[in-house]
């Protein structure tokens, strides 16, 4: 079961602010999701390796070659704020 503190923690980790009303809605929805996983957990999986990816491909590598480097102007094209060729963001420290 998930309680309000759990929900609050998840919201903080995801940097979301959740109003009291929303919190009630999300609690119901998330509880339903967790209940579903409880149901999935009942499947006997002894001797079955965890599935990392559903594809059948064994390996997919790149050789170590430099290609397709973006120019700084392009890299910064969508930046809301910039200084020269650097992204500008609110203070972190």
């Amino acid at each position, binding site marked *: 079961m998930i309680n309000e503190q759990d929900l609050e923690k998840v919201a903080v980790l995801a940097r979301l602010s959740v109003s009291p009303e929303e919190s009630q809605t999300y609690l119901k929805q998330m509880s339903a999701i967790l209940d579903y996983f409880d149901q999935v957990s009942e499947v006997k999986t002894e001797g079955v390796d965890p599935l990392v990816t559903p594809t059948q491909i064994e390996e997919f590598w790149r*050789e170590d070659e*430099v290609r*397709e480097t973006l120019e700084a102007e392009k890299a910064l094209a969508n930046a809301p704020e910039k200084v020269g060729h650097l992204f500008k963001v*609110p203070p972190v420290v």
Partner: protein
Amino acid sequence: MSSSDWEAVIGLEIHAQLLTQSKMFSPDSTEFGSGDNSNTHPVSLGLPGALPVLNKKAVEYSIKTGLALNCKIRQNSIFARKNYFYPDLPKGYQISQYDQPLCEEGWVEYFLEGETKRVRIERAHMEEDAGKSLHRGEYTLINLNRAGVPLLEIVSGPDMRSAQEAAEYARTVRSILLYLGVCDGNLEEGSMRCDCNVSVRKKGADRLGTKVELKNINSFRFIEKAIEYEIQRQIDCLESGESIFQETRLYDSVKNKTFPMRSKEEAHDYRYFPDPDLLSVVVETAWLEEIKSSLPELPLAKAQRFVREYQIPEYDSSVLTQDKALANYFEQVAEACGNPKAASNWIMVELLRELNEAKKTVVESPIPSAHLAELIGLIDKKTISGKMAKTVFAEMWKTGRAPGEIVKEQALVQITDDSAIENLVNQVIAANLEQVEAYRAGKTKLFGFFVGQIMKASKGQASPEMVNKILTEKLKG
């Protein structure tokens, strides 16, 4: 209670940037010092829909390092997402490895103060580097050139007991990385970074004390100083009844102090889970064997061979093998002059002193190995004395010329002719009869005075051994 009742427990996390041309999951360049944000790609910018594709070389270098650190290589390992928000991490997660790292359960050995020490390697896992933040007070600037550069994080066991051991362990790992050519090991530029976990406990206690993580250390000397400071700080805290908090502290090399890093209040919760964008990393046995057989001789094995083959002391061989180029240089000199002991002495004492003072590596030495071998040959053939050789060496360092040439030009040939030296001895004795009498009356300290006079008369060219021998005879009267 005194400091000696406490024991420090230290473990290191070393991040090594792997020397690939392109990034770990995208084909943009890893070059250091390029223009701001000029080495990027939709994957390293974390643009929606961009998919990572693993760089095979990064895996190869990681396996190489794992093998050199005596680790078991997991032939089926997976990438996980480590979730946290920070502006230099555009995707909101770092691709790393969590419960199934590529390399596990290894060890390294190093030599310190006459003892061989062993440190366990708990794991070494692959991950991508984040970008770089430049904090400007009112705002922060982000450069993503570094985002996605392949890293290998090497985690040691809590096996070190002093700051010196920790620094020596870090040097050993660096030297292995350099031998393998997988990392350039530059602490100042951050291509190798060391986080130190430090705790203290009462001697004999089983349980570990609360650990503090030290970051921001960019030289081996500072690793030692930061840990020393931190150990003392923790002992002082505990002795005055305070307790240690688990925290990250930064080292300030100017103040030689550690201070708490201002951090966000909420606890870290990285919510690792397997990255669904990537396949598991399968290392075929044939590939693993191929990498194994391509491993070069590593520092420890080389050091042991030097002791065995060249009969040089363990300490010398461990210093000479720290740098592969230096080890090669030593071998070239030793082979060419046939006197490994002298080769080791000249390199350890004279050459390394000059190199350190000039902040040069052996590759940049103005004295090629052939010249040093020639110099040792001249001493062994008694053409010049050891003392003259030092003068010649200084000239070789300054001018880069061959010793034979310098000796010829400065007429620095050692006088080894019996009668010539006897003449010199006779002259000096005749000119100092008073001192001769004093010597014979028991003032034997005057021996040095006579040697000095004779050497001066010979312009430093008389063989000191022969002067000693003939002078002793003559002074007997």
